[in-house]
Each structure stands twice: as C-alpha cells, then as structure tokens.
C-alpha cells in the first residue's frame, strides 16, 4: 500500500485525539496581538522611513543652511531638499499601496510575492537615500571647494606648495572612506535584520518558484 495512503487513513481517523478548545478559550485569543512577520515588516519599515527622514532633516539643519547661504548656494540646497521630500512621499505612497495588497486569503504564492514587493519598496527607498547622501556629499564638497573662503585659501596654499593634487586626493579619499564605512555598517545591519526576518519566507518562496521550472 502507498505510504501516504496509510498515513491518510490514520490522519483522518484520529480526529478525536486533538485538543478541544472551548468557546471562551478561542474568544480570548481574538483579543491577543499578532506576532506575524507582516506586522514586524510594517513596524521596521515605518522606523526606516522615520530614520531616513530624520537623517535628511539633520543634514539640513540651521547651521548648515546658513553656511550655504554664505556660499550663495541655498537654491541648490533647496532643490535637493524638495527632491528629498518628493522621494519620501513617492515611496511612502508606494509602500502603503503595496502593504494594503497583502492579504492572508490570497494563495500562498501571491501572498509571498506581495510581502516581498512591500519589502522591496523599502529597500529601494533606502538605496535611493544612500545614493542621495553620496551625491549630496560630493555636491557639498564641490561647493566648498569653490566657495568656502577657508577652503579656497587652503587650496591656494596647497597650489602654491605644489600639493594641489595631494590635497584633492586626500579630501576625496577621506570622504569616500567615511561614506564607505557608513554604507557598509548599514548594509550589515540590513543583512542581519532581514536575514533573520525573511529567511524562511525567501526559502519558501524559492521552493514554490522551483515548482514552476
């Protein structure tokens, strides 16, 4: 006899052996809080939005802006700021639209796809923010090279000593290293959080996709 048939026969006949929860016991469960990954993904994603909004807010704090007014580059900073807000709005809208499509009553594959899609939106948001920070850093640096009085005099000095190339390369390398370390730490953090949170979902999704080949 087929092994699974034997199992099926047994599986269907031992109904009486399952625990019987009472009406009240089940009723109490309705009041409990869910601990599903969707809930965690939602919380973490919202935290990420807040975190990045704070970062870009801090980068635009008053002192900084004043300095840029000195450089007469505040219109550039203003465009960067508007662009930053547009990015947040765009991704928040997409995030909520994707989040709302997650439904436990869809079939397993669609459910997994919708969860992964929601996550991907946040991932893209973070990637755009990182890109944004890197570009901003270089824009700021080039403005400083040209317009910051202190910087201009340092550059002039360096040029007089014949160390202009050295000065530029050191500044750029230091900036790159700082950016690299920041991005690296963030990526590691993401890798850990989502590695833990989404490992099972990713594995199961891959397994389902494999069936299609």
């Amino acid at each position, binding site marked *: 006899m087929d*092994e699974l048939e034997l*199992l099926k026969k047994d*599986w269907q006949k031992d109904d009486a052996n399952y625990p019987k929860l009472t009406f009240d016991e089940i009723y109490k469960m309705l009041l409990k809080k*869910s601990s*599903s990954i969707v809930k965690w993904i939602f919380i973490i994603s919202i935290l990420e939005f807040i975190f990045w909004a704070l970062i870009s807010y801090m980068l635009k704090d008053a002192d900084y802006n004043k300095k840029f007014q000195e450089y007469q580059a505040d219109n550039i900073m203003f465009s960067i700021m508007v662009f930053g807000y547009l990015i947040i709005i765009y991704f928040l809208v997409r995030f909520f639209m994707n989040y709302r499509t997650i439904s436990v*009553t869809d079939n397993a594959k669609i459910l997994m796809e919708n969860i992964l899609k929601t996550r991907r939106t946040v991932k893209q948001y973070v990637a755009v923010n990182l890109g944004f920070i890197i570009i901003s850093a270089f824009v700021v640096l080039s403005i400083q090279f040209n317009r910051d009085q202190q910087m201009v005099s340092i550059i002039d000095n360096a040029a007089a000593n014949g160390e202009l190339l050295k000065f530029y390369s050191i500044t750029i390398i230091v900036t790159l290293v700082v950016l690299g370390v920041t991005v690296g730490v963030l990526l590691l953090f993401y890798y850990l959080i989502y590695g833990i*949170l989404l490992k099972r979902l990713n594995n199961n999704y891959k*397994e389902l996709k494999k*069936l299609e080949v």
Partner: protein
Amino acid sequence: MTKDKEQHFVALLEKHQNIIHKVCRLYTYDYDSHNDLFQEITIQLWRAYPKFRGDSKFSTWMYRVGLNTAITLYRKSKRRIKTQDFSDIQFKISAEEYDDTEEQQLKLLYNAVRQLNDIEKALVFLYLENKNYREISETMGISEVNARVKMNRIKTKLRTILNP
C-alpha cells in the same frame, strides 16, 4: 451586530478547530509552539473574517489562511527548549487499534513527513485532508500539473527517507 459577528465566528472556529490543530501538528514540535501557532492562525482568521464571503465554505477558507500563516506569516517561537513532545502526548495512537508493525510504520511516516520542507508539508497536508489537485493548486498558487509532479516527488522523497 459586531458582538453577534464575533460570537458567530468563534462558534464556527470552535466547530472546525481541528483544521488548525492539524496545521499546527505538522508545523510545530512542542506544546508551546503549537499553542503559539494556533493563536496566530486564529488572529489571522479573525482579521480576514470581514472579507470572508459565504460563497466559499468556512472550512475551505480556513485551510488557506491556516497554511498561509504557517508557511509565510508565522515567526517561529523563540522558545527552543523542548517541553514535551506534543504529538506524543496528544496524538498517541492507541495500541489496541493497530498491530505493532502498522503502528511502527505510522510513527516512522510521521517522522518522515516532519523532515520535509514547509512547502512540501503544505502539499502533504492538503493531500491528507483529501483535497484534490485543483484545490491544492489554488491554495498554493501553482499549476495543477506542477502540484501533481511535486506530490509524486514528495512520495519518492518520503520513500527515500523511510528506506535510506
């Protein structure tokens, strides 16, 4: 009205609770996580209940939500200390009903099923629940042909686990 709806839902769940217990039986290994998963499925069912349309059977709908919770939404409980093996206490097969060989064989079979991955378990679960391939394919989101092929592969895999 809401109260009525709640009462009605709980009554339905009470009646069909075995479906959830069965899902928990396949996906958890101890008493605490069985309860954890049971509770999570109940919460997910209750949340999805407003969207439940009477045109599908409550039990059919439960299979889908139950499995989705087990293979996608549920985060395995942190409690790793094994208390008591739930299946051993709760699902003891009474010796009088079976001869020893069959009992032994069943035990091995259940152990083999536990070694399958989440998706394979889901297919086995629906199969054991006597669902046809159309229902299996609709619940999992794969084609009927692929469901059949996978089921055959699972049977082979189980055989390999049983007779290494």
